[in-house]
């Protein structure tokens, strides 16, 4: 392989709001540069998780290297990084941005700028990246490219007049995007002869190769045999293989010089040795100082995750460890629940992040899980002056020890078509929102600014938003700190025993309502048993709501003759299986779906 000419490398990413077509554009680029033939193409090549294809979203950043022969006759190496769009995956975005020298901003010609368009642009600007706008979906009848261009110039303040107007779907004008990349995105800098300095921006575990590190080489060169030193974890390993990313496969190469993006394997078995954001250097010739790495993202939403089959605890631990390898924002620590046994308290960036991790655990590790009600981090100030950060409602000190509590607030920005401003404002009021301001982006669309308690948006706020705006609202938020609030712990008692997995912290003014709903829901979901079961909601020792599951009186097949026997046996088998999927609290059997449906109290 000829020596790589640094000036012919372009490292860039694609950023966009959900659904504006960035994965489709990535597909087209891969196809047009001949990396895959049309026959090999399937939609959203880079979204290789089933979950990503199903939901049409990108969860994990993906890298792919292609070679493009530009109009100037030169061949360029394009390292393209596809990034997630949702606010919950900021961490992923931030990581991929650090590996790039420029970014393409895809904007839907019909939808225009949306909440996450903005937040991703700001993120790119924070990383000092050039942002090249691309107007996509011009094939749509509702496309208004001119309007969108002026929107980009007005709202974001970047030049967009010459932005390529394309349709990633049909392939129209996509070549102009490639020219744009070659001409406007700067070539990487860095001295291939300097001491090695590379940024880890991703890693996955492979059972044959060990940990596979995705890295951007900033300075120096890495090749087989290099003794690498991970500056934060202080691990030293010898490189076994380096290479770059084809579409969905890894292609080994001689070396990765400064400016390149590629992978490194070094028979690393211990996943915790390779921390995303860490700097790799040469153990024999270390660089002077580490790269700044990433801003650490702190989890904002916590919940307990338990295997429904207690024997799978170890599998769950391994799965979480492997997921965390590639998602440093995922936090977990062991916890025990009276009702659910051994599991983990996990921290997430948001509710979508939680849902995605839960789905991945189920699908990729074949785990059957029970998730407890999500909780945010509360600050509990005790009478003795100390303060604890509470992530698990079970650990709330006795009310007599508490001076006061604080809950996290977010600055929420909701973009909605003017028809739905009313219902959305109502929703925000219901969720204890404090109205700040409203402005019109254009005649038919407004931006609402609210302060909202985070614990009000982790319960299906996004779903409620979508249903009340018929899907026309987009939502973004940022943390803004803590505020003193009147909070209580709502205990749920089943047959007079407190069920830790169902207890949660709630605003005092909503406690009565929530307790009542919860009891009603549980009454619906807990099957009648041999004895009467009281279900109570309580604050401290005060019962605020009660329902009763009456004792079962009838569970019998009246008729059973020759022709029915096989069928009746199947019915009984089904009943027996159903029983296995129950958790026991005292001598009450609770179906595991109860823990799930308790999370969905706000539906309807």
């Amino acid at each position, binding site marked *: 392989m000829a020596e790589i000419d640094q000036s012919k490398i372009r490292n860039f990413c694609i950023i966009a709001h959900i659904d504006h077509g960035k994965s489709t554009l990535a597909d087209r680029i891969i196809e047009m540069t001949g990396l895959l033939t049309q026959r090999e193409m399937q939609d959203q090549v880079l979204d290789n998780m089933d979950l990503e294809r199903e939901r049409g979203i990108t969860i994990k950043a993906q890298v792919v290297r292609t070679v493009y022969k530009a109009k100037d006759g030169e061949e360029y190496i394009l390292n393209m990084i596809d990034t997630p769009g949702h606010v919950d995956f900021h961490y992923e975005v931030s990581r991929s941005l650090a590996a790039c020298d420029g970014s393409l901003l895809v904007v839907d010609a019909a939808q225009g700028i949306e909440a996450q368009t903005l937040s991703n642009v700001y993120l790119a600007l924070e990383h000092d990246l050039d942002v090249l706008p691309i107007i996509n979906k011009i094939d749509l009848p509702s496309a208004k490219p001119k309007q969108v261009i002026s929107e980009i110039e007005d709202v974001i303040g970047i030049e967009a007049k010459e932005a390529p107007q394309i349709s990633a779907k049909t392939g129209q004008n996509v070549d102009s995007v490639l020219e744009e990349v070659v001409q406007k995105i700067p070539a990487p800098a860095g001295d291939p002869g300097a001491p090695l300095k590379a940024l880890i921006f991703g890693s996955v575990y492979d059972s044959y190769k060990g940990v596979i590190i995705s890295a951007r080489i900033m300075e120096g060169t890495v090749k087989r045999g290099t003794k690498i030193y991970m500056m934060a974890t202080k691990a030293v390993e010898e490189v076994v293989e380096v290479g770059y990313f084809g579409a969905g496969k890894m292609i080994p190469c001689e070396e990765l010089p400064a400016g390149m993006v590629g992978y490194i394997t070094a028979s690393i078995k211990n996943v915790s040795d390779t921390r995303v954001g860490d700097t790799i250097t040469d153990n024999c010739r270390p660089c002077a100082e580490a790269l700044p790495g990433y801003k650490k993202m702190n989890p904002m939403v916590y919940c307990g995750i338990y295997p429904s089959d207690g024997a799978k605890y170890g599998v769950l631990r391994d799965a979480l460890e492997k997921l965390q390898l590639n998602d440093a924002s995922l936090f977990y620590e062991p916890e025990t629940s009276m009702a659910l046994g051994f599991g983990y308290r996990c921290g997430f960036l948001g509710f979508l992040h939680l849902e995605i991790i839960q789905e991945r655990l189920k699908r990729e590790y074949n785990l059957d899980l029970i998730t407890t009600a999500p909780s945010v981090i509360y600050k509990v100030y005790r009478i003795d002056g100390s303060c604890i950060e509470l992530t698990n409602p079970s650990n709330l000190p006795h009310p007599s020890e508490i001076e006061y509590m604080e809950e996290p607030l977010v600055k929420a920005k909701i973009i909605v078509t003017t028809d739905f401003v009313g219902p959305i404002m109502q929703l925000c009021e219901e969720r204890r929102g404090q109205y700040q301001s409203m402005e019109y982006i254009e005649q038919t669309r407004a931006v609402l600014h609210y302060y909202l308690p985070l614990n009000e948006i982790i319960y299906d706020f996004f779903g409620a938003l979508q249903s009340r705006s018929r899907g026309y609202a987009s939502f973004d938020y940022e943390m803004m700190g803590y505020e003193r609030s009147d909070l209580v712990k709502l205990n749920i008692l089943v047959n007079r025993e407190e069920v830790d997995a169902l207890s949660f912290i709630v605003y005092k003014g909503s406690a009565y309502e929530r307790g009542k709903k919860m009891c009603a829901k549980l009454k619906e979901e807990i099957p009648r048993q041999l004895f009467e079961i009281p279900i109570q909601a309580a604050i401290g020792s005060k019962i605020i709501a009660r329902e009763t599951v009456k004792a079962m*009186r*009838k569970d019998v097949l009246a008729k059973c003759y*020759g*022709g029915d026997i*096989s069928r009746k046996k199947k019915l009984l088998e089904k009943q*027996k299986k159903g029983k296995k999927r129950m958790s026991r609290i005292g001598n009450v059997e609770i179906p595991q779906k109860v823990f799930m449906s308790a999370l969905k109290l706000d539906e309807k």
Partner: protein
Amino acid sequence: MKEMKLYVHIPFCVRKCNYCDFLSFVADKEIQERYLKALEAEIVGGSKAFMDYEVSTVFIGGGTPSLLEADGIEGILKRLKQNYFIREEAEISVEVNPGTVSEEKLKRYRESGVNRISFGCQSTLNEELKSLGRIHTFEEFMESWEFAREAGFKNINVDLISGLPGQDVNSWERSLREIASLSPEHISVYSLILEEGTPFYENQEKLNFPDEDSERMMYESTHDILAVYGYWQYEISNYSKTGYECRHNLGYWTGAEYWGIGLGSSSLIGNIRFRNTSDMKCYLENSYHPDLIQEETERLNKMDHQAEFMIFGLRLTEGVAEREFEKKFGIPLRQVYGKQIEKYWKAGLLKQERGRIFLTRRGLSLSNMVMSEFLP
């Protein structure tokens, strides 16, 4: 010689009742004729396999077997006698729906060997009969009842259903007393089951079904009232005067071998459960060759047999005998099911007395819960 039971299915009805999910339908005379021919073919075709069996009971059920002319029933019984060894004292039952029989017809049944009649009465109140979708009134039942006694039947069952829309404990008790005072030898009382796909199931929200508590009160009062009239409850839904328990049905609950003839009929022969096709066309064409119409074959292993022994044995109020279990399977009952018995004995659903294990009153109503734990 081994013992077996024979069941013959007649899948025809005048109309389909609102609660019924049995394999039955309305069919014209021509189909009925062809079906009888096919039955004969199956009877003859299957006989080779049962050379070393004696038949202890025959049950002709449906549908509405009494829809057939007397010749039909006579023909079936004649063929059976020609091809199988039917014991002298065999119990031979036919299901009869009121309004489909004359005195003459019942006399002919009697002459052709039928010695037990099972009447589908279901209720004594005409409005209830109407809501069930029955074709007869209570007066018509009374008429058929008289005919049967006149024809000389000394072993008659009457079917009733409790838990009907609009029924309450009082109206149920009145109906029950009215039937008991006729003094039939046997009464079957079924708590209504809402079966998927039936009009009752589809419209359950609109129909005024009694709640679970009153429904169970009806069940308990059935036991109490019938006891006064001299009936004993020998199974979850069956009551009789002493010595008139249905011998055919007892076979199902005690693991007897039985062969089901006709469309969709089920059989247990040796270790194998199987079922005939429910496809009329297939049945009519192939009934002579048992292999072509048998499906859903299930081979029972020892564990299955043990579970069935418990599950179906516990339907009987006398339950199961420990000695019999051990004799049959060569292992003490408690060694296999000690844990389950202990659990439900403690919960008050099972009782153990004089070497027998049986359900308590409460256990009878919650029997699914208990039985499901005996499954392998």
